[in-house]
């Protein structure tokens, strides 16, 4: 049966609505999985699982190209079947994945966890496979409308993704996953009505199957799917094991699920950095967890002032109290900025200064609302609100929009355990540029205070120190070492970066503070070896030696050190990446006596994921060639393999290679640009999640419009391809040079305005980037219609490889390099197309 004749005669209507719906649901499913696995496991794991699961697109393309002649006979049945299976497996496979016993933390110890990981990957690939099948089958079936179909696919994905992010503000990811399955089943009902006259097999069975799926989903799935089971090693899972402890409230947001835990029997004691010498009691607290990680605390407000002062006495005994001993207390006034809401820290500043005003920047509005609304009475917000202003935005954006000068800017890095699972998470708060911004907003006697949990051997605290030193160097501050002071306790360190040189009097105050609390001095101008390593003794004073080395010769020391402690920058904002390949063998050799703690899993896992994606790609992409080779071989044999056939084979090979590379390069280039822009915009749009939502949706919607627009060039795709890629290259070059300046112009505007600016900046690039793929497909339809599904598969595999590779390249060389590579890749695609 000729597929062209099928399209023209006796053809069902193009299922535009279903393609739109399934594409939207597939992206929604991807976003939901990211959220769900961040809650169940950790961020880096979620990222890796999703990146590989998308290989389902590649597998789909390959299978369809091999058996497309058979599939086309039953297009209507197969389309609806794939949609149904996508609906059912999206919930079912997630549920099954949850039943697999897997622990990220144990992966280094037990090989069976690798097997469990492979099973999770395989399960999550299934729904993407079915969704991709539905789309690819339609593209093959209606290949003369491929550009419009691709446009519909992109638009659906864009709108589906955006809607999901908005819905995540109100609903749990688990319940949304269930709703997604039901929605896709509803789409199936619509498609069934549209296709019912075109079935080759009796359609009532499909109707029956559809209804059964609906019923089963409705009756059985909700209680399992909505039930999220975080691993037992998450901080929240452990906290609720305390007698009587319970999650009192849970708030949903795409930035993370916020859980508030109350423990009425065993008091919560969330006091990072408390001195071992402290005898002070700790007031009642409630714990706040984000995606099950944390906790941070909300302290109970004690009404009586005398009792309150007693209850808060412990706040004197934290390493994070050290800046208060440095600041000038004569005028009794303090104007500070706190990056990230930390209720005890707010109380701390009030304890030391009678008159303190604090700006708190907390990007997750839900956390701010805990203090100002939900737990306002518990936390005594009424007594705080005249002095504290909470801003729901990123610190960098806030500083750009305000002209305030501060006595202190305080921030805190993640704990060492959490940090080891966040190596792939960009964070713009701890970059050299961020520190410069903080430094400029200090009053003449002001300080930046950074609290860091201690990792041994030292890592996080040294990276913060290196960042501060780099910043001081870039600001041309004379004798930078006089502006730095660092102390450490048994589990936390505190770094002070002062606008003015730290005086001897201030150093003496800190010495007294440290001695009374068994804290150690790490560095101050003029420090000697006998000043350090007294209370929390290490076999050698590593912190002191490293600080001295960083000050004396930073590049050499960073290069030689066994962890990556080079300062993060806005172009490479991976602050929590400490992994170095050169140290891996040594760490693994000591795995059984402490070495395991030295390996951050995120980064090596990313490399493993890339290797797997490449391996799958190399296996999957050539598969259709074997079936094609058989056909060519048959022709050759029947023609006696004369010279003409040999020449045909040669040309065929060259064209096949060009198809392969063209679609691979276009897929690679698209994702390189998208990932680089998402990461760059994360600073402009306050948060990586907001950036991902806005940029991905903008890219998909505008690329969809571009794809729809290029239908009119269907007759002359070659010219249009060259032109569109040339424009892509020009626009990317403009973006590369001028985007930073444009973003700087608007960074002080409100978020809605910035979202519009970001979308408008993305629009022209995305519009033309949406063209090369459908134009390539149009060209393919003219000459080799049977390769359409293969091109789809190649593009899918390229998207997986490029998502991981772009992150890896950004970690090593920055986003600028990723964008430059994208320009080169697009240029190579144009050359590849022109050659044949």
């Amino acid at each position: 049966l000729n597929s062209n004749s099928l399209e023209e005669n006796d053809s069902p209507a193009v299922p535009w609505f279903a393609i739109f719906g399934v594409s939207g649901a597939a992206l929604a499913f991807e976003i939901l999985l990211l959220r769900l696995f961040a809650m169940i496991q950790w961020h880096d794991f979620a990222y890796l699982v999703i990146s590989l699961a998308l290989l389902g697109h590649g597998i789909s393309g390959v299978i369809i190209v091999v058996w497309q002649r058979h599939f086309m006979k039953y297009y209507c049945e197969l389309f609806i079947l794939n949609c149904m299976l996508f609906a059912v497996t999206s919930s079912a496979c997630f549920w099954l994945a949850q039943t697999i016993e897997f622990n990220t933390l144990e992966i280094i110890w037990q090989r069976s966890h690798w097997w469990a990981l492979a099973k999770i990957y395989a399960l999550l690939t299934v729904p993407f496979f079915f969704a991709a099948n539905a789309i690819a089958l339609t593209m093959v079936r209606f290949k003369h409308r491929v550009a419009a179909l691709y446009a519909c696919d992109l638009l659906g994905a864009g709108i589906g993704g955006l809607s999901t992010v908005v819905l995540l503000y109100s609903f749990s990811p688990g319940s949304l996953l269930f709703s997604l399955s039901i929605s896709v089943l509803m789409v199936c009902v619509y498609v069934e009505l549209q296709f019912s006259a075109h079935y080759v097999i009796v359609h009532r069975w499909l109707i029956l199957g559809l209804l059964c799926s609906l019923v089963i989903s409705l009756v059985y799935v909700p209680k399992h799917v909505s039930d999220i089971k975080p691993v037992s090693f998450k901080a929240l899972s452990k906290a609720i094991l305390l007698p009587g402890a319970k999650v009192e409230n849970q708030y949903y947001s795409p930035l993370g699920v916020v859980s508030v835990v109350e423990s009425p029997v065993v008091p919560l004691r969330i006091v990072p950095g408390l001195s071992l010498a402290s005898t002070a009691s700790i007031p009642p607290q409630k714990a706040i967890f984000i995606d099950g990680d944390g906790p941070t605390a909300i302290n109970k407000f004690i009404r009586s002032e005398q009792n309150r002062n007693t209850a808060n006495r412990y706040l004197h005994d934290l390493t994070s109290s050290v800046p208060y001993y440095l600041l000038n207390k004569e005028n009794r006034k303090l104007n500070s900025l706190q990056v990230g809401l930390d209720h005890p820290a707010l109380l701390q500043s009030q304890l030391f200064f009678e008159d303190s005003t604090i700006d708190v920047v907390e990007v997750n509005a839900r956390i701010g609302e805990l203090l100002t609304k939900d737990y306002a009475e518990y936390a005594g917000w009424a007594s705080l609100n005249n002095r504290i202003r909470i801003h729901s935005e990123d610190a960098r954006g806030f500083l750009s929009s305000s002209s305030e000068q501060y006595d202190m800017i305080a921030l805190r890095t993640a704990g060492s355990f959490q940090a080891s699972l966040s190596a792939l998470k960009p964070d713009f708060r701890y970059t050299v540029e961020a520190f410069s911004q903080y430094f400029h907003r200090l009053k003449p006697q002001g300080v930046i205070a950074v609290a860091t949990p201690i990792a041994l051997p030292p890592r996080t605290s040294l990276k913060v120190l290196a960042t501060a030193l780099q910043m001081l160097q870039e600001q041309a501050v004379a004798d930078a070492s006089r502006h730095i002071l660092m102390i450490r306790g048994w589990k936390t360190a505190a770094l002070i970066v002062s606008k003015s040189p730290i005086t001897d009097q201030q150093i003496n105050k800190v010495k007294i503070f440290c001695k009374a609390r068994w804290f150690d001095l790490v560095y101050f101008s003029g420090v000697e070896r006998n000043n350090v390593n007294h209370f929390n003794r290490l076999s050698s004073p590593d912190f002191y030696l490293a600080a001295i080395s960083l000050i004396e010769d930073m590049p050499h020391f960073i290069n030689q050190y066994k962890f990556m402690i080079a300062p993060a920058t806005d172009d490479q904002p991976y602050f929590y990446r400490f992994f170095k390949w050169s140290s891996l063998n040594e760490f693994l050799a000591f795995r059984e006596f402490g070495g395991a703690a030295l390996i951050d899993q995120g980064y090596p896992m990313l490399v493993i994921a890339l290797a797997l994606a490449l391996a799958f790609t190399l296996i999957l992409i050539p598969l259709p060639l074997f079936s094609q080779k058989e056909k060519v071989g048959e022709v050759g044999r029947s023609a006696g393999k004369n010279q003409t056939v040999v020449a045909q084979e040669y040309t065929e090979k060259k064209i096949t290679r060009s198809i392969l590379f063209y679609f691979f390069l276009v897929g690679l280039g698209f994702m390189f640009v998208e990932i680089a822009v998402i990461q760059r915009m994360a600073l402009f749009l306050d948060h990586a999640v907001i950036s991902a939502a806005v940029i991905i949706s903008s890219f998909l919607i505008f690329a969809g419009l571009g794809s729809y627009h290029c239908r009119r060039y269907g007759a002359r795709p070659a010219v249009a391809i060259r032109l569109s890629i040339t424009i892509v290259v020009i626009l990317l070059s403009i973006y590369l040079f001028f985007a930073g300046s444009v973003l700087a112009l608007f960074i002080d505007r409100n978020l809605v305005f910035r979202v519009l600016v970001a979308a408008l900046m993305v629009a022209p690039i995305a519009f033309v980037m949406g063209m090369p793929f459908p134009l390539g497909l149009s060209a393919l339809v003219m000459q080799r219609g049977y390769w359409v599904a293969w091109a789809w598969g190649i593009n899918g595999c390229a998207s997986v490889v490029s998502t991981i590779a772009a992150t890896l390249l950004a970690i090593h060389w920055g986003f600028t390099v990723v964008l430059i590579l994208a320009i080169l890749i697009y240029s190579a695609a144009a050359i590849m197309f022109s050659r044949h």
Partner: protein
Amino acid sequence: MKRGESSVGQGEQLIRLLLWTLLTLYLQVIYSASLHALDWPQLRKDMVNEIRQNAIATASHIGKSQFDPRILDVMASVPRHQFVPVLRKPFAYYNRPLPIGYGQTISQPYIVALMTDLIEPKSSDVVLEVGTGSGYQAAVLSRLVKAVYTIEIISPLSQQANERFAQLGYSNVHAKVADGFHGWEEIAPFDSIIVTAAGGLIPPPLIRQLKPGGRMAIPVGGPFTVQHLMLVEKDKEGEIVIRQILPVRFVPLTGVH
């Protein structure tokens, strides 16, 4: 539905249930048989030999090239496999931590040896352990000291450990379910304290409950990775010295000095 059909359905269900039960029993028997086939004493001996090698490899950091031989002898006799969940038994003598449920782990044997060695146990000592977990650390200590007092906040864990102590004859281990923050005031002071569940805070009452000349050991790090060990020493005058010990033979600094 007719009565006949209903009884047929019930019959099928019963047969299915029976088959599942038989299959489960069969698998249990196979698994138990495979466990019985394991030579536990030999596995213990191998484990102790590995710890001995680890001690030599980490000598420069732990300050000695071998652990107290008494500790290793005890570890060669305590049936670690009785302290881990059934499915983890085959791995019980691997030098690695194992999950025991409730977000807790049984420490890897090398860390148990190191922690025990750090507190320098004597036969007359009374030791407090905060965080009973599986009970393995307490069992090792019980053969080295006069009495072990162990506290666990998670009731089911404490109950399981208690049953093990009774079953295996560790009669000088006294366990209770309580908040370890407050220590065990009625029995204090202690010659040594081991805190296996420190979290972000080392409870000040524990330092007070340590005898002059006493030692307290605390592992710091994630559930499967001990980053470093803290040794709190209280001298005869009651002054405190804290040492932070890396369990690994690792020299992080290769810089300019």
